[in-house]
C-alpha cells in the first residue's frame, strides 16, 4: 500500500443533539409581534364607552349636569342611578370636591347643585357614616342666597371598632 492507495478513514462526527429552544424563541417573538399589533398598531376601538370611561373634564360636566337636573327636578332616584354610571369611589367626596372647585371658579349655581346632591346622598347614607342633623341641613329646593354646605373628605366619617371593655379578674 503506497501513499496513493492508502485508505482514508475520517473520524465520524459526533451526532449533535440540537435543542428545541428555537421554538420557544419563535413563539416569544410572535407573541411580542401580536401584542404590539393589537395594543399599539391596531388597538380595539371602543364605540360604546360608558360614562365611567370619560375623560375627567367630561366626567365633571356629566356630574354637574346630574346635580343640576337633581336641583331642578328633585328626582333623587334618577340622580343616584346616573351618578352610579360614573363609578366614583366616593361620590359624596367627589361631588363636594367638585362643588368647591366650581365655587372657586365663581360658578355658584353649579356649586350649589353639586353640594345639594352631595348632601342628599349623605343624608341617605347608612347611619354609621351619617353626620349629625345640624351639619347636614339642606333644603329640598335651592334658594338664592342660601349658604352652600359643601361636604368635604373630613366629613365622611368612617365607623371605628370599639375595643371590648376588659372585666377585672378577681
Amino acid at each position, binding site marked *: 500500500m503506497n501513499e496513493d492507495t492508502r485508505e482514508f478513514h475520517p473520524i465520524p462526527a459526533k451526532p449533535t443533539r440540537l435543542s428545541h429552544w428555537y421554538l*420557544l424563541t419563535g413563539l416569544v417573538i410572535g407573541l411580542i409581534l*401580536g401584542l404590539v399589533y393589537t*395594543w399599539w398598531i391596531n*388597538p380595539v376601538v371602543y364605540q360604546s364607552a360608558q360614562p365611567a*370611561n370619560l375623560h375627567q373634564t*367630561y366626567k365633571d360636566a356629566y356630574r354637574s349636569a346630574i346635580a343640576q337636573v337633581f336641583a331642578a327636578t328633585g328626582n333623587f332616584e334618577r340622580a343616584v342611578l346616573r351618578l352610579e*354610571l360614573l363609578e366614583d369611589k366616593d361620590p359624596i367626596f367627589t361631588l363636594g370636591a367638585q362643588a368647591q372647585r366650581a365655587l372657586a371658579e365663581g360658578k355658584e349655581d353649579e356649586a350649589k347643585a353639586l353640594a345639594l346632591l352631595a348632601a342628599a346622598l349623605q343624608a341617605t347614607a347608612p347611619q354609621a357614616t351619617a353626620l349629625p342633623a345640624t351639619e347636614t341641613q339642606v333644603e329640598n329646593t335651592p334658594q338664592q342666597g342660601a349658604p352652600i354646605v359643601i361636604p368635604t373628605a373630613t366629613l365622611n366619617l368612617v365607623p371605628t371598632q370599639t375595643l371590648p371593655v376588659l372585666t377585672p379578674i378577681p
Partner: protein
Amino acid sequence: MSNRRLRWIFFMVAILVGIAAGVFIGYQVAPVQYQDAVPQSLRFDYQTDYILMVAELYQDEGNAALAAARLIFMGVQNPSEMVVSAIIFAQENQYAPKDIQLMNDLARAIQDLNLDTQ
C-alpha cells in the same frame, strides 16, 4: 429535506403561533382599556340620557343657547340632528312620554335657535 431547513420551517411556524396567541390576548383576553374616552364614543343610550338631562335643564332654565352649548361641550357636532336621533331612540325604547316630550321641546328650541342665528 435538510435538518437546517426543517428547523427554519418550525421556527416560522412558532412565530405564527406566537402572533396568533398575541392577537388573541390583545383583542380578547386583555384588550386596550380606554380611560379617557370622549363623549362621542359613549354608547348611544348614555348619549340619549345626557341629552335628556340637557332637556330637563332646558325646561327649568328656558335657555336654548345654554342647552346647545352643553350639547356642543359634550362633543355633539350638530345638536339639532343629535336631539332628533335621541328622540327616535327614546321612542323605539319606550322612554316615558314626559321625557320624550322634554326632548321634543329641546329639539324645537334648538331648531329655532339655528334659524335665528342663520
